[in-house]
């Protein structure tokens, strides 16, 4: 079913390696999390009371945001540009690679891209703010989140009818999750009705896993839910590729 995904992954990575030389590309995905980290860390650092200190709390939140934004945004932009601008998504579509392998290969490349960006944020936070090494649930959460949002990026990149529709997804899905899913402050601070919804969003689960020391009953449940969301976004990506037509 996934036979040939490595060829798709190889192609995506070749393009990533050739793009990474461009400073704009390298820093565009890191700029916002870095600004958030420094602005909120310096501005609110000593005024927000959370266990372990606000810098550590915020740094983990920035890791979650970095993985989400890089996984989703770069993948969706890459796929939509391949459709509208470079017009070479058809070369993937015409090749004898299954739809599931195609999505897996692209999403895996998006995962690597997102985790690489997160690694830069982590190293910065560790160097300047002494961020501790991530726990196993935290690492697992980042990997699942990166893959889930990259697969969602494939689906969105194939669904939008023009680049302007991309901002709708960013404004209605990505930005609210950035601010309300426990990256800047605990979800527990939200009003009860809002919290009941927000706690099940993927980025909230990532943040919960990043703050867990080890796998317990709660983090296992969160990891299971995040895995289910990942499988759903992957299936949605495959569905969109299967229905893809060129006119």
């Amino acid at each position: 079913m996934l036979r040939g995904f490595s060829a798709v992954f190889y192609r995506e990575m070749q393009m990533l390696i050739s793009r990474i030389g461009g400073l704009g590309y390298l820093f565009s995905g890191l700029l916002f999390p870095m600004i958030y980290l420094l602005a909120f860390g310096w501005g609110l650092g000593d005024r927000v009371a959370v266990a372990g200190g606000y810098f550590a709390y915020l740094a983990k939140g920035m890791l979650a945001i970095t993985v989400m934004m890089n996984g989703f945004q770069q993948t969706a932009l890459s796929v939509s540009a391949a459709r509208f601008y470079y017009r070479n998504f058809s070369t993937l579509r015409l090749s004898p690679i299954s739809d599931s392998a195609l999505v897996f290969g692209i999403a895996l490349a998006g995962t690597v891209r997102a985790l690489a960006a997160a690694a830069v944020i982590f190293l910065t936070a560790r160097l300047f703010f002494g961020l501790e090494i991530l726990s196993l649930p935290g690492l697992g959460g980042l990997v699942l989140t990166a893959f889930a949002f990259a697969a969602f990026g494939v689906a969105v990149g194939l669904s939008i009818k023009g680049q302007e529709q991309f901002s709708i997804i960013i404004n209605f899905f990505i930005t609210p999750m950035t601010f309300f899913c426990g990256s800047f402050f605990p979800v527990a601070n939200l009003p009860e009705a809002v919290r009941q919804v927000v706690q099940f969003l993927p980025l909230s689960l990532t943040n919960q896993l990043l703050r867990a020391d080890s796998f317990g009953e709660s983090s296992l449940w969160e990891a299971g839910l995040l895995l289910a969301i990942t499988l759903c976004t992957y299936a949605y990506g495959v569905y969109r590729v299967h229905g893809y037509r060129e006119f």
Partner: protein
Amino acid sequence: MSIVVENVNCSRKGRSILHNVSLQVLAGEVMGLLGPNGAGKTTLIRLLSGLARPDKGQITIQGEDAAARSVAFRRLLGLVPQENNFESELTIEQSMLCYARLYGLPEPAGQVKAICERFRIGEWRQKKPDKLSGGMKRRAMIARAMLPDPQVLLLDEPSVGLDPDMRQEIWQLLKGLQAEGKTILLTTHYMEEAEALCSRIAFLRGGQLLYTGTCADMRHWLSPQKAISLEDAFVELSHGQLAQEVG
């Protein structure tokens, strides 16, 4: 029979693009698809390649249903689209290596080198596509399409925008492929291209197939009394009185 198009209808947003088109291309034949702009030539190429689906009717290539897009179908087919769709970040060789991997070729590097030499783009293969002339890009695109050695080659306006010298070179390449027994279907606006390459032509206008046969027979059909050029025949069939009657 290599390509069979049976009663194909295709519409988009309520507008009919192809209406009841039936066509057959023999194995080893070069067929030209002619017609004015908007006739439906590119749509037919997309339907043949499986990138789009007909509303009604069926297309098979060597017995494989185009709409089903089986792996066997995709291995039969090479497509050279109208626009250069090489990955702009990669060199021609890197792009071709990716393509070779997508098709699961056993020795990607060796096979890419061999096809580049065969199509005389060896000295250009380390360059990115934007450094190549229009003619070299077309040559490279044909080479890429032939890399997995497909039996059927679809070309959408293979020599558009090329100077006469380069056009002749492309024709020589295509004649060489025909001599190897490849089935070729190409769209063109150049009448001399149709006469030089195609054993038969099909003429589309307004989504309807008006004529299938040899160039000579079309000229004679349109003007039995006096000899006319294929270009005159094209104009007559596109806009003349006969077009109204046949259409």
